[in-house]
């Protein structure tokens, strides 16, 4: 028991640094996904037919291919083929960002479509351009509605980030595996890794819950149902 505890204590700073890398991957991926998701959702709802077709193809590709396959395809395949020098952390953030971008696009698309159509019409009737109406009227509401689904996406991407260890990114899982294979203390180290994932999940979801409460629309959204 003592040896097991020692193994975790000794490895903890090393694992913690892995947790920082995991957090960076997830933050970057969610950020990339947010930008892609918003743009793609707007294109899917308001764009011309040819654009919708193109964006649907993007959605189908990233939702239809496993993340592990995408990591190999991009990191060992595409980036090598195009001779792009990119470190493993950035590659994982990019692939996860493009993947979550596809899922987030559908979250935002659903949120936009759930808004009463009349609001866009009312904004237009006041002389707002389409861009101004989307930016000032549609997105502020759609993004608020999306927060619960977005926090789900955060926890999914956080856990998917563990796949990064197969391409050698120094995140929690890779570091736990590295130490465990040397000390043979598999149980305590993977428990510690699990705990770090759990803490990151808890911190992120709690923060998003607070955000959801902070930006709730009085009398309309974000209130607890009794």
């Amino acid at each position, binding site marked *: 028991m003592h040896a097991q505890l020692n193994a975790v204590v000794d490895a903890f700073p090393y694992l913690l640094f892995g947790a920082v890398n995991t957090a960076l991957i997830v933050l970057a991926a969610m950020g990339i996904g947010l930008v892609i998701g918003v743009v793609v959702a707007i294109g899917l709802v308001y764009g011309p037919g040819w654009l919708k077709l193109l964006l649907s193809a993007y959605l189908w590709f990233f939702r239809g291919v496993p993340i592990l396959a995408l990591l190999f395809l991009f990191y060992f395949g595409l980036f090598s083929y195009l001779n792009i020098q990119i470190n493993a952390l950035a590659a994982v953030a990019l692939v996860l960002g493009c993947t979550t971008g596809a899922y987030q696009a559908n979250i935002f698309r659903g949120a936009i479509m759930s808004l*009463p159509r*009349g*609001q866009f*019409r*009312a*904004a*237009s*009737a*006041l*002389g*707002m*351009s*389409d861009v*101004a109406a989307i930016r*000032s*009227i549609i997105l*502020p*509401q759609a993004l*608020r509605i999306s927060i619960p689904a977005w926090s789900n996406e955060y926890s999914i991407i956080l856990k998917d980030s563990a796949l990064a260890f197969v391409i050698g990114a120094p995140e929690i899982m890779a570091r736990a595996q590295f130490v465990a294979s040397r000390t043979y203390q598999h149980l305590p180290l993977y428990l510690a890794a699990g705990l770090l994932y759990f803490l990151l999940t808890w911190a992120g979801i709690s923060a998003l819950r607070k955000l959801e409460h902070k930006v709730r*629309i*009085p*009398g*309309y959204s974000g209130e607890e149902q009794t």
Partner: protein
Amino acid sequence: MNSSEIPVLQADKVSKSFSGQRILNGVSVGLKRGEIKVLIGPSGGGKSTLLQCINCLVLPDEGSISLAGVEVDLHNKKSLYQLRQQVGMIFQDFNLFDHLNALDNITIALRKVKKISRTAAEKRARLELEQVGLGDKTDLYPAQLSGGQKQRVAIARALAMDPQVLLLDEPTSALDPELIGEVIAVIRNLAGKGMTMLMATHQISLISTLADEILFMEAGVIVERGAPSLLLVPGCGSKSAGFCDRLSELADGECKC
């Protein structure tokens, strides 16, 4: 032609089809400054589509829209944005922006469209809200307002843009009977101030007392037009009189003034 004779707004031979079905068939309406015209007729007759074609929320397939004698380029988005700034629109279901309080529902277009500073926009918005009797509701969100209050905010929002014409698409139809009165009072007040209006409504009191001209629409065509004093004479046999009689019967006579 004298400038006062030029209609503020003129829709000429406007036609519109949806999925191959003709909704509007060559409809023409002109509004001179201060004039109030009321669209009546059975549901599905094209009243809402006509109003939406006039401020180009729906683009007409054929015909033209002119503002103060100048034809609007229907294929130029900037022209459409400018037209809509001049032609306010009130919807049946209010269409307030749910994430903004009453004050910001009004300031948003002033700031984003007219590029007015936040302070000046808020000052104007407070003034407009006071005009419609909601000076104490500035901080409330749409979900915290009654239907009548929402519609009054919507009217204040449109008026803050200083429109030359106000289009009203059944402004009282989604309201409970006890809330209709407060919206009618605001519309009467606007009429008293000389606001040019084209209104689709089933409110007998508005039709008979405010309209300079009644336009009876059926199957996408204006089939009858004239002053209420001519069309609403009991027993005159006009479609308008028959329609209003049926509305009165439905309302059990309570709205008839």
